[in-house]
């Protein structure tokens, strides 16, 4: 026996869809997201006895940290062409143009920490405190990173005419 009970299997089955989607939104690459989730769950398995009461926060944190480390092993795997915002990415048929062509590429352009804050808060629906715990930073940092990230998205979504007016006003 490997020391992991059936509750571990249950945890993997229940949590892996959300972890995979989070990893995908953080990395923008499906293959890499699958690797990240598998490695994160391996880390969970190693700590299972200690964290089995509340494994989700640990798993979430592992996913975020592994996704952040993506640059380290960017040469280890073939480049894939299905990342969000790249030409090969096929959006869901009902996605509107704004989301597909402007918002998601703008999210992918954000620095890793700002992207992580947005994904944790607006995809995983975590509170500021929970987000801070996952990222290992203060709640103030979460709030400021959210503010900067939303400001950048707002600029990306602004009408060119509106943007021009603002430029003139400034």
């Amino acid at each position, binding site marked *: 026996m*490997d*020391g*992991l009970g059936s509750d571990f*299997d249950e945890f*993997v*089955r229940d949590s*892996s*869809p959300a*972890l*995979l*989607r989070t990893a*995908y*939104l953080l990395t923008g690459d*499906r*293959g890499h*997201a*699958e*690797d990240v*989730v*598998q490695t994160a*769950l*391996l880390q969970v*398995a*190693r700590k299972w006895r200690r964290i089995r009461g509340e494994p989700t926060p640990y798993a979430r944190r592992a996913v975020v940290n592994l996704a952040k480390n993506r640059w380290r092993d960017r*040469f*280890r*795997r*073939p*480049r*894939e*062409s*299905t990342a*969000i915002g790249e030409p090969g990415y096929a*959006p*869901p048929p*009902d*996605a509107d143009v*704004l*989301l597909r062509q402007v*918002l*998601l590429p703008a*999210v992918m352009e954000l620095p890793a920490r700002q992207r992580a804050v*947005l*994904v944790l808060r*607006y*995809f995983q629906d975590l509170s500021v405190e929970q987000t801070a715990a996952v990222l290992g930073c203060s709640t103030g940092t979460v709030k400021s990173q959210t503010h900067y990230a*939303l400001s950048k*998205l*707002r600029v990306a*979504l*602004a009408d060119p005419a*509106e943007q021009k007016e603002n430029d003139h006003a400034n």
Partner: protein
Amino acid sequence: MRTDDELTTLLRRGLAQASADLDPSPELVHAVRRRYVRSRRRRVAVAVAVPAAALAAGSGLALAGGGTTNHTPSHTAGAVSPPLAPSTEPAAPSTKPVSSTPVKPASYRVVLSNRRAPASCPANATGPVSKTASPRPGVWFWTNGECFFVGVGGADTKPGDAAPLHINGFPGLYSTLKDGVRTIYAPGIGGRGWWVLDMPANTPLDTAVRIIVPAN
């Protein structure tokens, strides 16, 4: 300008839509369990191997630890003792054997290493297997006194003239040989894309593949 509420509503919808069609592989549980069992075996092997090597070494291995005067490792029994000369002197009073002190692998280090890079190795080949980014991403390894460099890259497709390559435990490999360069194509994780390993034709293929490609 959009308000924060409008923006976050749009963002929630966008993030949900972008990831809606993603579902983990049904094999995920088994894959994680397999990796977990393998990593546990490795840990056990290392924990056993280090003290065993120390026991076996006797003359070729020095133990370096803090406070050597008081440090009495339990494995001195393995050391070769000098032959006893025949003597008429009365025997020294017998001493009780020193009780063994528990020693952890972390408490000493192995100072003798017989792993030296062959002279032909470049300076950045610092171990029997070492990754490098220079002259390009790849791996140096040495075997039988010779150094080999394997370039590692990726491709979306493999060439049509690539022939299947059979190495036990590594299904789906293909290979080409052109101008003295062997190129091996290994399937990417999840069946997307190919790893591309290129190396001189005389490189031991089996070793190169086992070093770089995860076994199935």
